[in-house]
Structure formats: structure tokens, C-alpha cells
């Protein structure tokens, strides 16, 4: 072979390799996933993002799959890339890879966020997709896909009711309740069932702990209590007494809330105190080791612990409270587990700053109760 032909072949081969590298989203995705705190890696990620989008719909599934890592920083870069690719393809009159998108949506191994994003683009171009996919998603691991399935079932049940088929509607609402995870949908179902003479224990459905041992007040004058480590944080001894706020003796006592959403009113249970800390303690039994989320709502500053380990802390007073406001992730042991929550009230005199309360539930990542038994040994 003449040298010039050999050189030409080598050059052509190198060019083919380069082009293959140019269409390989892997290295580009890696640069995006490498973004870090305070904008670290942004410069490289910006270039990679542009190149990734330039690849077009051939890279769409790879970008969606990269969301499986669930790294929140990179996820937003990737999400924007999916939207940019899909939008540009459609604006250019090209088609999205609908078969591949549907396959992706059906594969529950992928993250819920990625599958939902794929579904939304699929549904935009294939109007029959929702009817085909959503009904089978009542127990889907994606919260948003599941929500759509529950909403569809609720509509169907309403139609059953309108037709006078009460038994079928009740059955349908019970199915919806089993699947529902969002508060508004649970409330909607519970209200419908109540009208059909079926009571729903909302606190149990959500997994709120209602029976507690409480102790307080300890001192939180000028906010010192949030950081202070009072005896309950060192060791829970239900038989012991301590010097609390203003050296007053405090002891653990039983309290069960009857609130539908497990709210414990410490002003009523412990007594009205400002500049005070209260603790609530419960022992729960888990059938198996399992990852859980402890979700708390409170207007006050809180810390909560699982088996002595701090899961979450937040210092902010009277700016609002909401179910699932604060989420701490932990793992329940098989058998006995201790949950402790510290709730700090400050000294604001405003009428809207008097609430001293909390609600706490234990659930899985989707917000479903994990079926625990409260087994606190009282004294």
C-alpha cells in the first residue's frame, strides 16, 4: 500500500473515531454530574450542556437515565437539557422517540423524576398515552405519576356515585385511599368516604405518632435552649426527674393527642410557657430494618433524633407550619427504635407567635405510613 493511501486511511479512521466521540453523551454527562458547591464545575458543565443539547433526540434517553443518580444539582442541569432537546426537536418539525420514551416511563428502575419528565414529553406528542399508562400507576414509585392515577380513579368514582352505584364507589375510594400519598387527595377521599358513612383514621393513614411521653419546660430564654443539650438529649430515663426552666422539677408524663393529624399542643399538655423547650419521646417497633423518613410540622424550632442520632435541626420561629415541613432521613432497626423530638418556643409577644406544637410521622420515601407500633414503656 502506498504511504499516501495508508495515511489517508489512518486520517479517515481517526475522523470516524472523533465523530463517534462527538455523538457519545457519556463524557458530556460526566462533566455535568461533576458540578459542585458554589458553582464549582459550572464552566465545564455549561460547555458540556450545549454539546449535549446539540446531539438532539439521540441523546434524550441517556440524559433521562442520567437523572437516576438523583444528585439535585446535576438533576436541574439535566432536566433543562431534556426540555431544550425536546423543544428544539419539535420546533424543527422532527419527532420525539415516542417508543423509547414509553419504554423508559414503564421501567420503574428509573427515578420517579426522570420517568415523570419522560411521560410529560410523551403525553405532549401522544395524546393517547395518559389513557394507556396512568390507570396502571396507582402503586407507582413515582409520586407524580401515582397522583395522576389517583386523580383519575377519583373521577371514575364520582361518576359511579353519580350513577348511584354506591358499593362500587366505596370500593373505588378505598383503593384510592390505599394509593394516595398527597394530603389533598387523602383528605378528598376521606371526606368522600365520610359522606358514605365510612370513617378514615387520617392520623393512622399518614403514620402520625399520637402517643408520647412528654417533658418540659426547659429553658429557652433568649433562644439558648436550641443549642443547649438538656438531659433528655443525653439519655431518656422515663423514671427520672430534672430541674427544668427556673429550676422547677420536671418529669416525663404520658400524652395522647386526638388531633386528626397528630398535632401535639404543648401549651395544653405541658402548660403555656414562653422561652421554653419541650421534649416528646416514643418507642416504636418495626418489623424489619427499613429506610424511613421522619416528617415534622411545627411553628417552632425543632430537632429530632432517631435512636440517639440527630436527623434534622432547624431554628426558625413562627413563620408558618405545614405537614411534612421538615424531613429527616434515617433507618429503623428491626425491633425497637427510639424517637425523640425537641420543640423550642421563643419569647415573642405577638398574638400569632404563641403556638407551641408539633406533629411527627414516620413514613417511606413516598410518604406512605410504614406500619409501626408504639411500644413506649411508660415508667
Amino acid at each position: 500500500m502506498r504511504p499516501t493511501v495508508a495515511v489517508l486511511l489512518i486520517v479517515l479512521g481517526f475522523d470516524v473515531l472523533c465523530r463517534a466521540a462527538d455523538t457519545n453523551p457519556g463524557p458530556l454527562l460526566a462533566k455535568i454530574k461533576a458540578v459542585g458547591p458554589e458553582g464549582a464545575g459550572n464552566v465545564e458543565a455549561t460547555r458540556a450542556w450545549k454539546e449535549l443539547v446539540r446531539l438532539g433526540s439521540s441523546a434524550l434517553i441517556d440524559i433521562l437515565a442520567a437523572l437516576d443518580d438523583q444528585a439535585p444539582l446535576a438533576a436541574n442541569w439535566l432536566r433543562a437539557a431534556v426540555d431544550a432537546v425536546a423543544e428544539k426537536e419539535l420546533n424543527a418539525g422532527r419527532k420525539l422517540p415516542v417508543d423509547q420514551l414509553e419504554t423508559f416511563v414503564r421501567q420503574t428502575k428509573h427515578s420517579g423524576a426522570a420517568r415523570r419528565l419522560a411521560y410529560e414529553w410523551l403525553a405532549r406528542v401522544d395524546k393517547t398515552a395518559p389513557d394507556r399508562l396512568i390507570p396502571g400507576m396507582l402503586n407507582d414509585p413515582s409520586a407524580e405519576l401515582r397522583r395522576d392515577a389517583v386523580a383519575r380513579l377519583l373521577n371514575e368514582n364520582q361518576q359511579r356515585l353519580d350513577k348511584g352505584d354506591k358499593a362500587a364507589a366505596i370500593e373505588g375510594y378505598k383503593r384510592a385511599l390505599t394509593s394516595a400519598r398527597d394530603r389533598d387527595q387523602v383528605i378528598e377521599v376521606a371526606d368522600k368516604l365520610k359522606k358514605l358513612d365510612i370513617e378514615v383514621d387520617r392520623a393512622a393513614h399518614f403514620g402520625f405518632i399520637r402517643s408520647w411521653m412528654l417533658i418540659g419546660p426547659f429553658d429557652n430564654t433568649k433562644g439558648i435552649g436550641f443549642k443547649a443539650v438538656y438531659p433528655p438529649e443525653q439519655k431518656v430515663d422515663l423514671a427520672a426527674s430534672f430541674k427544668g426552666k427556673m429550676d422547677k422539677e420536671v418529669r416525663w408524663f404520658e400524652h395522647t393527642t386526638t388531633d386528626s393529624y397528630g398535632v401535639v399542643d404543648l401549651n395544653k399538655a405541658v402548660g403555656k410557657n414562653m422561652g421554653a423547650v419541650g421534649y416528646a419521646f416514643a418507642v416504636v417497633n418495626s418489623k424489619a430494618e427499613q429506610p424511613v423518613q421522619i416528617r415534622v410540622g411545627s411553628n417552632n424550632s425543632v430537632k429530632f433524633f432517631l435512636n440517639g442520632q440527630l436527623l434534622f435541626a432547624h431554628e426558625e420561629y413562627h413563620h408558618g407550619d405545614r405537614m411534612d415541613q421538615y424531613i429527616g432521613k434515617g433507618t429503623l432497626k428491626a425491633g425497637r427504635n427510639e424517637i425523640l423530638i425537641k420543640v423550642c418556643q421563643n419569647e415573642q409577644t405577638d398574638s400569632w407567635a404563641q403556638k407551641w406544637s408539633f406533629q411527627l410521622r414516620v413514613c417511606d420515601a413516598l410518604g406512605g405510613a410504614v406500619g409501626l407500633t408504639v411500644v413506649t414503656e411508660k415508667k
Partner: protein
Amino acid sequence: MKKLLISLSGLLLAGLVSAGEWTQFRGPLGKGTTDDTGLPVRWSQNENLRWKAELPGRGLSNPVIARGRVYVTASSGVSQDRLHILCFDVATGKKLWERQFSATGSTLCHPKTCMAAPTPVTDGERVYALFATCDLVCLDAEGNLIWYRSLRKDYPTVSNNVGMASSPVLWEDLLLVQMENAGESFAVGIDKLTGQNRWKIDRNRGINWVTPLVIQNGNQPEVLFQSSQEITAYDPRTGRKRWSYEGTGLSTTPSPIPANGTVLVTAGEMLALRPGNEQNSPEVLWRSNRVRPATASALYYQERVYAVNSAGVLNCADAINGKPLGQERLKGPFSASPVAADGKIYLVNEEGTTFVVQAGDQPKLLEKNSLGETILASPAIADGAVFLRSDHHLYCIAAKKAK
């Protein structure tokens, strides 16, 4: 020569913004005014409506406009965790692109507000959007992502469960963000091309919704950050402190506004402050409790100060000495801040009624226009049109078609 330099610096400070642009919260330099003319006085869903576009979810941010594009943010989802940035064509209202992001910070807030409360800022080439979740995004005019940051992930104790609303502003190549809240509180100058910090300074801890103000103080640009205890000027390039006015009860809701060499600061009363410098303290030129706004920021226009109070009364004062002038009774409540151009002041109340008022010593109501939707966002004025946004729609109100 000094005066010439100051004038030229002022032009530079304007960021070479073109006429017909509204680039940040309350428009160019945060003044709330433009040189637009021919603006409409009367409108409805059927009259003087150039176009109307649908928006997802909710939003309190005002639209920003530059180079023929309108940028708007919104937030949606069961827990307001979907963050949207949308771009529309100014002339037609056609949606050019939309990008969504997932919230990485808390979405808890007062029911009145939402995660799309801070107003974005644009330099015409890029739009920078901050959400109340502390997610910060930079996109170019075509919707390409330039960079993204989660200020909540960077600074995990940052929190305001009432909801955040302070808007970012630009100065040269820096994005200036004021992040005062219940947790780690700071102000930061971010490289607008890379999203990385150039400087970061500590600020007093406490929830705060005011937007920073960039001014020209003599031949020096300054960025002012106001909290309940002080308004402090810093070198925007370095974050170095220049001067400070300390007081009690300074507003954490109405933002400071520029007024021809002075700064109008809402406190227990309105203060007209002559900026200080490194050698001299700032000076209070006048005070007035007659022209103190409630929730909406005040307005400086044609050498007068206007402010709407909690009773829905629009008060006017002489900006030179604070002397009360006239007033006009409107109907509140008002969350949106007033804006002005073409000799008219536009104030929109929460019910979505826009009061068009003739500016002057005695403000005079010209027209009331209702769109029948709740509007909490301040209006924008650009391209001969008034832009209003509700949760569900973006309106372009204009007396004639765009050029």
C-alpha cells in the same frame, strides 16, 4: 470635568439599557419609571389588549423585558416545587421557550406568596432568575442553560418559611443577591457568566424581602442593602463597605428607591437620605410620615415622591423637601409597587384593578381598569405597553400594535 465624568458614569450605570426595556424588579435601576410614551389609559379583556398568554402555576415576580423578549417566572406543583422560566415574544405574545427546574430548597411560604416571588433580571443576552427556594438559574435568550446553582445546598441553614422575595440585580458583570433570612444571612456578588462567587459578605440575620439598589454616588457605583437595622452601601465590585445609615424599624418589605441623588428609605416614616462616603456619614435630608408606603415600594417620578398607604390612599410629596402635596383615594390592598411613564402612574391592587393616575402635585385618577384576576406582581412598562401578570396570565396592554 467632574460633572461630565459623573454624568458619563450614570450612563454606564444604566448598563447601556435600551429604551423600551424593563430589566429588573421595578425596571431599569429599580426606579419604576421609563421614557415610554403613548401608554394606554383604559383597557379590559376586550380593549387595548395586544395579547394575553397563559402561565402555569403561580407567580408574584414582575415580567422583565429586553431585546424583544419578555421573561417571566412561575412556580407550580402540589408543593410549589416546579420552577418555571418562560420567554415570550414582546410583539405577539408567542411563547418562545420554557424551562423547568426542581426546587432544592424549602417550598414553605405564606399562602399569599409562592416560590416565583423574586423578579428575574436580564442584561438582554441572558436572564437570571432566583426563586424563593434559593434556586438560581442563568439562561441565555434562546433558553440555553448557562449555569445553575442551589443557594440552599450551598448554605443549608438559609430559610424563610414565610417565603422569600428579594430580587437579584446586575452591576456590570456581577449578579448581586441579598439573602437575609432566619439562617445564614449574607449578600453575594456572583460572576454572571460562571455563577461562581466573586465576593460574599455576612449580613444580619433576620427575614427580609427588600431588593438591593445600585446607585451612582458621585463617581462611585454602590450597591445598597437594607435591613431592619441599617441601610449600607458597598462597593459592588468587591463587597467592601463604604458607609452605613443605622436606625430602627427600617422596612423589610418596601425597597429603597433612587431619587435624583438621594435615596428614599422606608422606615417608621419615609427618609430622604443623602448617601455618605468613606469619610462622611449619610445625611437625612427630610422625614415624612405622610408619604410612607405600606407593602408596595414608593415611587420617585418627576421630582415628586408617591406612596400608597394601607388605606389605599396615594400620597404625593415634594422630593426635594418632603413637603406634602396632594393625595388621591384609591382602593387597596396593594401588594404591587407603582410604576410610571408618559406622565401617568400605574398602580394595580390585589383584585387586579389598575388605577391610572395623572402624575402631579395633585394626583388625579384617570381610569380604573379591571382584568378580573388577582394580581400581586408589580407592572412592567416597555415597548409602549404595560405588562401585567396574574397567576394565570401575562397581559400586554397597549394602545397600538408594536412597531
